């Protein structure tokens, strides 16, 4: 009888239920975004290895030109460049190197990011990033960045050699001594 007639119990049930629902709703609210599935391995394996390594062309001795400034309409591309860093990116590279010496690797990474925003296509910056990745122990990314530097600097004899030697060191760290040797035997490396 008490049970049947107790509006309070009913009210309690109702509100308790509501409360419970509210709690549940709060806990079980679906995450706003799906977590992405774990990433597949980078597609490096699928890419033809030799395709990313510039083949050995004869390195023509050509007059060295200044790194071209961005132009509004292209001229015929110069066959050889001498890349250098602008004062701003040079300052950032110095800063990043200082950070590496002090063991501030994330800071160095951020500094080089900043430099890349200023001169994204400068192979010298990519060489710096490759070195940093090597220091961090991310040898795979070090290799990729060195290859990026090689491609960007393919017309600068000295940049190419620097990037080539760095890449050879990285390949040795990856226990790919034969690849490193092949690279070092390229005519343009000497």
């Amino acid at each position: 009888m008490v049970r049947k007639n107790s509006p309070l119990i009913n009210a309690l049930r109702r509100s308790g239920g509501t409360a419970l629902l509210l709690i549940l709703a709060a806990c079980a609210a679906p995450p706003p975004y799906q977590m992405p599935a774990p990433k597949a391995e980078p597609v490096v394996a699928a890419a033809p290895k030799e395709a990313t390594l510039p083949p050995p062309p004869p390195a023509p001795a050509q007059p060295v030109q200044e790194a071209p400034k961005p132009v509004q309409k292209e001229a015929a591309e110069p066959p050889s460049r001498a890349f250098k860093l602008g004062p701003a990116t040079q300052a950032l590279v110095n800063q990043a190197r200082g950070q590496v010496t002090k063991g501030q690797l994330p800071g160095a990474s951020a500094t080089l990011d900043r430099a890349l925003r200023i001169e994204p296509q400068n192979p010298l910056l990519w060489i710096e990033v490759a070195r940093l990745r090597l220091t961090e122990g991310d040898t795979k990314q070090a290799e990729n960045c060195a290859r990026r530097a090689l491609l960007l600097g393919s017309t600068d004899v000295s940049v190419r050699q620097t990037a080539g030697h760095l890449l050879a060191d990285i390949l040795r760290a990856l226990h790919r001594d034969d690849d490193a040797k092949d690279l070092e035997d390229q005519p343009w490396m000497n």
Partner: protein
Amino acid sequence: MTTTRTVWMLPRKVLYALGGIILIAALGLLGWVFYLDGVVQHEFKGRLWSVPARVYAAPTDLYVGATVTADDLDTELRRLHYRIGDPGSGPGIYRRKGGDFEINTRRVRFVDEMRAPVRIRVHANAEGIAGIESADGTELPLFRLDPLLIGSVFPVHGEDRIVLTPNDVPEMLVTFLKTIEDRRFDEHNGVDLRSILRAIWADVRAGHMVQGGSTLTQQLVKNYFLTDERTFGRKLKEAVMAMRLEAHYTKEEILIAYLNEIDLGQDGERAIHGFGLGSEYYFGKPIDELEPAEMALLVGLVKGPSWYDPLKHPDRARTRRNLVLKELGEAKVLDAAAVTRAQAQPLGLRPAGAGYVPAFLDLVRRHLKRDYAEADLAAAGLSIYTTLDPHAQAAAERAVTNQLKRLDTIAHNRSKGAPLEAAMIIAEPTSGQVLAVVGGRDTRFLGFNRALDARRSIGSLVKPAVYLTALETGRYNAATILLDAPLELKLPDGQVWAPQNYTHEVFGSVPMVRALSESMNLATVRLGLELGLPAVADTLQKLGLERRPALNPSMLLGTVEMTPLEVIQVYTALANGGFQSRLRSVQAVLDEDGKALKSFKLEVTPAASPAAVYEVSRMMTQVTERGTGRAVGARLHVTMPAKTGTSSDLRDSWFAGFTGSHVAVAWVGYDDNRPTGLTGATGALPVWLDAMSELHLKAWQPDTPTEVEDRWIEFSSGLATEPRCSADAVLVGVPRGTTLTARQGCGQPASESVVDRVKSWLEKTVH
């Protein structure tokens, strides 16, 4: 006797029953209060008692040669809320004389340092920055401005909300709110009996409910937990919960929760919660920049956000605002002159332009989820440094807004449903930094984020992947003749597929460079079938598409569906010389102490042969020079590879392309897939072009990979030629040593000196 006994027994029964009822009622009440207490605490702990993460745009770097003009710098400083005045008087103040700026910067935390206020001088002109020096005259190689705050978010909840912290809230807003809604807020314990009695008296006099008499705490509780029904039961529950809330939390905590939670309106499906978002939504500026009239309007909205909706019912909103102002005057919060002045002002609803960037923040949240541990993100007071370029973002927003306005008048089927929509993403290809994201027509409000979620047929945007696949085999080059001729294909389901060119023309024998830049369907399908569908799908995946597209022959014409984000990822690999650069919007996340969380760094991965990518990109420059995208070349005069895309029946209009400094994609279409009557060139291209023309673009000018050489061929025939022989000559990249058939009388010498090339280029340009 029986009677007496019964009589005697009855009261005892009643007594027991009564006792039982009272006991259970008391227990029930206790349980009920306990429950409500739990609900209140749970909800508050989980939602608002942590400091939101602050999200910043990439800081602008100033250095000699940076393309920041004097006016750009001025805009930037104002955007950062620097005031004009004597820089000697304190941080956050600057003075400009022509192109000379004296700036006293604020104390500011960057990813890698905390910088104390410093005084600098910057010289800028119409081209960019000409010099920077510190106060003592030392030249500085570079200097970065404060990073612009673009939002406060809870990375884990991922809500579209601008969360205010106590420091963000202007004192005036609090005063207005208390005066209008709850004058005894600081004294009562959640429920204000006096105001309830006053409300009841008002109701009785009116004969129905006219006043709620709710405190801010009760309103907050109602907003959090309860429906809008006006019953005694709900009122009671609200009162109990309000009192429990007051028992657990301070007045300041409750007030800040209120300011962040209260309902201030509705935008389509989405509720506008909180004064932070309300201020951006209605006025397009942060809360601390509101004037009294604007603040009064927001405070007035609390009473009935949909009834007083200033966008839908401006007259009601104005009346309400002026009533609020009048009450503020009567309460001596504002003086009479201020009230009169404020009442005379227009509503001042938001103008168009950059500010709150919900679509970009949406990408930031997803990248945070992708790259960081959820436990780390739940920490209070994080600082999130993003890659947003406010200048590029503003350009993309303007382009979408202005072009949609124009396209609205020419698109087909425009009256048959929701209006035409658009999306755009701009990124820096080499490092994969996302600079701008526009998710739809209303750039200030995050509804459906088309840039990230609209998966649509990409049409001919797929063609560069087909041609790249061909070039990578080594059996094709830009001069290879393809056959553009009708074909019929029996599909597995028995149907016959007979693709056609857009113009229904048939072009016969055409060199690859022309087939691609004029987007010929028949030639492309024939080529793709020769290569095999799996090979083309492989290429798309290598370039960064994270799903395997369905292998239908029609995939070669772009029935494959992709989001703008997926498209730009693929095009970034092309822009990046065959290296995939994983797109990212987050540069770093710092915790409350300024320590970097384990973060996601720049990542590049070789994805395709750089030689083949160079060749296809060089071909794609013809799209903007003489092909379907020539309007771009005509306006920008910068060499850039690009591609138009149009899906079947003109349902989707796409344009994607890149320069040496930017890669961008634009999409235009209807959400329900109605045909728009727009091609890639008439719909998305103008959006893309408008945005890109505002940026400081660097020409696409990569070094020619060593395995490739640049040669001149005739656009129509593919025969080797020289610019002096043919107005039809185009420069293409072919594998070094490729034998090209030459037109008689105008062969190309086997090797050409630079001087000759420059000369022939000049001749071509002059003619």
